[in-house]
């Protein structure tokens, strides 16, 4: 069926992004790699959304595609929250720490 492979890819990326955000929340403050995991999770979540949309546009409309899309959106929100702040806030705090 056209688009099924894309839907499976979307689901896998969505699950991986959620696993990464979960692992980073456990490791936070105990391991420096935890700092990078939300970024990788965000990229995987974005890939998951793009694959799910492409799958739908190719004519696949199954539960796998919907699950991939939902997991991608949840992953984007959760990963995005961890590194999102308005201009100046944390940036300025980082600058004062490093300079």
């Amino acid at each position, binding site marked *: 069926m056209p688009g099924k492979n894309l839907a499976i890819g979307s689901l896998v990326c969505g699950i991986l992004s959620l696993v990464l955000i979960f692992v980073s929340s456990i490791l936070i403050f105990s391991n420096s790699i935890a700092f990078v995991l939300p970024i990788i999770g965000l990229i995987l979540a974005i890939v998951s959304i793009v694959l799910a*949309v492409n799958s739908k546009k190719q004519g696949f409309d199954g539960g796998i595609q919907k699950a991939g899309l939902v997991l991608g*959106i949840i992953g984007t929100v959760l990963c995005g*929250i961890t590194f999102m*702040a308005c*201009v100046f*806030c944390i940036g300025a705090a*980082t600058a004062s720490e490093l300079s």
Partner: protein
Amino acid sequence: MLPFIEIFGKTVPMYAVMAFLGAAAMCAVSAAFARVRKNVSAEDIFYMLLYAGIGCLIGAKLLYLIISVDVYWLTDKSFTENLKYWVQLLMSGGLVFYGGLIGAFLGALRYCKHFKIPFEDSVETVIPTVPLFHAFGRIGCFCAGCCYGMEYDGIFSVTFKKSLGAPNGIPLLPVQLIEASGNFLLFVLLTLLFVRNIPRLSLSGFYLACYAAMRFTLEFFRGDIIRGKAMGISTSQWISVFVFAAGIILIVRKAKTGKISIQK
């Protein structure tokens, strides 16, 4: 005011919460608008907004890094140290609205081109909800204490006590709330114009011109001077000038030809 909140035992930045609430409101209202217009499906609008959201995140972060070059590129440190520092900046925070707007535009354009969806109709359906999203974002700024106003000791002045960005203990003009109110007003105005469906009126052009004029003015009342500046005005004011011109061009083109796009 309230830079962080606790959700299930985790400390979450209020700015991000407000931004995602704004995005959810934007998706819901856009889907309702798509049902009113009926020339674009609600599903396509939703998918286009997802692409626009991805573009928005990337664009807002990229512009933040670009305008931070002179502030955050430390000349006394080595290239490797600066690079490490930038990676930390990339992951620690910072988004610029105009970068997000340009990124969202490119994301939406990519979706419409790739799947052959009418771009102009889709954008005209979504554009009234952009100021709604932005208003939520500005309330988030107020909660975090960033994008703060100049020193002001009159009526409605605000004094931050535990802000990350704004100077604590000094009365300031709540410019974030003024911009949020302006955005809400713009949302109401654009919704009224959308419902009336005035032919040959470019809602995108109207939004761009109105927002750019408002932003250019409000920038004079901002107190956060640690941002890019050139020839006496801020980066955002320079971008506002070009955005205003783009808005006027869109309005004139739509009024003359009935179309925004230059495709024949």
